[in-house]
């Protein structure tokens, strides 16, 4: 029995360094969906990006002379699970920062916890506009380096407004919370441009036949559709367009880069829409190195943007820690709002990315216009885009 106890103790002692977390290490975490919902794909790839950034920081000697340890918590896309993960990470694991989540609803579910417990959160995926909005006078601990729905709407409507060929615009949205919030943003931004959509049509996210809605747009002579929907219904929308032989220009969100879209739309139709992503087809040398490391693990290369922006969240947070020379949540939050040195990220160079009022690291003008071609996402270019200036992105 004694021998057994000794053996167990020895095994435990041997396992400790393997587990890798000593008291000196800095724990960082991802809390988000990596298995449950259709958006889990961006969560999984984001985790790869964060892991790569943690590895790179450790290689150059860690942060404040300490090693980073990366914890991953799957919230299955469920808000209660996400809240539970959050309190566990803050109270028990005592992490220094939380990255994520994947789904906007989950960020909104625990936003107040992060703010109360002074836990810096860098959102690397979820795109709902409300996530980074301040709540009252309290300091806001949520920062984002990802697309923002409001900015996506701003970019899409700006293009439609600027394009001389777009004479009649139609808004097509799904009836989920995602689609309705997108429609609200698009309508407000269209009003800023002084344009009125000729038709507004809605469809259920489970619909597979949108011919009736499209027929109305066709009859009204609509030449440009701005679509706010998830990957699968977007695929069914372009299939329905082909059915009624109506192919207007389609402008849409990053949803088109998710695997569900090309799967549903098929090889030919997937090349039709123009959409937004955060990384260009030809990455920088740093981006190339990340692509070489995680590329082979990606089932869908077009989602590489999810890794690049997640990678950047870690770099920007690390820069704030170095500036604050502390891991204290309050000090890091203030440093993030007032970053002195520019950070060279994969998506762009972050020069004072955040301020007290603005917690968005990426803006509409940072987005890349993309389309599918030969099974890959490539840059989309046309004279209208070339002529667009920052002033066009009204929001």
């Amino acid at each position: 029995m004694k021998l057994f106890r000794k053996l167990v103790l020895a095994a435990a002692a041997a396992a400790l360094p393997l587990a890798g977390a000593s008291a000196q290490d800095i724990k960082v975490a991802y809390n988000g969906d990596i298995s449950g919902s259709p958006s889990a794909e961006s969560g999984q790839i984001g985790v790869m990006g964060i892991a790569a950034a943690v590895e790179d920081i450790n290689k150059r000697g860690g942060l404040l002379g300490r090693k980073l340890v990366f914890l991953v918590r799957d919230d299955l896309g469920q808000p209660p699970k996400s809240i539970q993960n959050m309190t566990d990470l803050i109270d028990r694991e005592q992490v220094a920062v939380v990255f994520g989540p994947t789904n906007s609803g989950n960020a909104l579910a625990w936003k107040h916890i992060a703010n109360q417990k002074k836990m810096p959160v860098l959102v690397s995926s979820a795109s709902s506009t409300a996530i980074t909005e301040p709540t009252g006078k309290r300091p806001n601990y949520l920062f984002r380096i990802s697309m923002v729905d409001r900015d996506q709407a701003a970019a899409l409507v700006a293009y439609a407004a600027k394009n001389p060929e777009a004479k009649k615009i139609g808004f097509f949205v799904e009836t989920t919370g995602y689609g309705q919030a997108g429609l609200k943003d698009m309508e407000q931004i269209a009003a800023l441009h002084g344009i009125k959509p000729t038709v507004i049509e809605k469809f259920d996210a489970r619909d597979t036949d949108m011919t009736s809605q499209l027929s109305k747009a066709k009859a009204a002579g609509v030449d440009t559709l701005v679509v706010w929907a998830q990957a699968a219904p977007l695929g069914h929308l372009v299939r329905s367009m082909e059915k009624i032989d109506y192919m207007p220009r389609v402008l849409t969100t990053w949803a088109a880069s998710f695997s569900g879209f090309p799967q549903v739309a098929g090889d030919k139709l997937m090349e039709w829409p123009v959409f937004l992503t955060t990384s260009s087809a030809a990455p920088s040398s740093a981006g190339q190195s990340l692509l070489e490391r995680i590329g082979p693990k990606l089932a869908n290369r077009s989602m590489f943007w999810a890794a690049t922006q997640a990678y950047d969240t870690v770099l920007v947070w690390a820069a704030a820690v170095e500036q604050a020379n502390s891991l204290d949540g309050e000090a890091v939050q203030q440093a993030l709002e007032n970053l002195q040195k520019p950070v060279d990220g994969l998506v762009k160079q972050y020069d004072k990315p955040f301020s007290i009022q603005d917690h968005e690291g990426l803006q509409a003008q940072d987005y890349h216009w993309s389309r599918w071609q030969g099974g890959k996402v490539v840059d989309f270019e046309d004279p209208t885009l070339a002529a667009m200036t920052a002033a066009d992105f009204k929001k």
Partner: protein
Amino acid sequence: MSTTVLQALIGGLTMGGVYALIALGFSLTYTTTRTLNFAQGDFVSVGTFVGVGTIALIGGALAIDPASYPWAYLLAALAASLAMGAMGLPLYLAAIRPFAGKAGMSWVMSTIGFGIIMQSAALSLWGPGTRMVAAPLGDDVIRIAGAGFRSQEIMVLVLAMLLLGAIDYAMHRTSLGRSMRAVALNRDAAALMGIPVERIMALSFVVSSALAGLSGVLIAPIMSASLFMGVVIALKGFSAAIVGGLTNLRGCIFGGIMIGLAESFTGLWSAQWREIVVFVVVIAILAVFPDGLFGKKLVEKV
């Protein structure tokens, strides 16, 4: 305008055919056992994934692209029907037989539970993602009088009608069909006439589950296959059975097609009102015909 109507007509008939197949499944088990399989939706989705899995297996084993071989799809449809049909037996034995013919609603819970078990097992096997199934006869748009269709829609429509016709024929013209109807009419009398009542009841569950599995594979190339897709289809199928009259097979077929058409024609006016209109129609019909349009009142013996 007429092309839009034709487009809606064929779309409605296609989905209506699928609803009718599901409605038939409900009717078969209701008439023979006075119970319904509330897991019908899960049989649809799990059946689809058995089909998807079969196609992937064939592609892997023979190192071919199964999308270009229609017989792979045929085998998938067969596998889904057989696998789901086979699942109908444990469903009957575990979730129906202990409760059928007794007072109470235990079978409601036991069938729902059976479905949840099946769906969860399938989730752990295939995950929550959606899959696309390539249509066996190609994905090109076929134009008829200006309206566009894909081969699968026409195929679902034709196959559903053929199947409905075949089942209708079998129920009225074959001795097995007559036995089933005899059990439905009067279980005790049927038993006295030497009809193996137990076996007939089990068979009705097997056929009904096989129909669900087959419907799943049929619509998979039209919808994106997911393990959650069955619920809505089964709900519409159930409504179709209730509206048409659970006890009348032809009524169920009529109910399915009516709901499919109501759906697609409401869509011409406003897609958001589709479900509202469909269920208002269902409630209105039931208010006037409590046993459905063609149903008969079944007297419960007390």
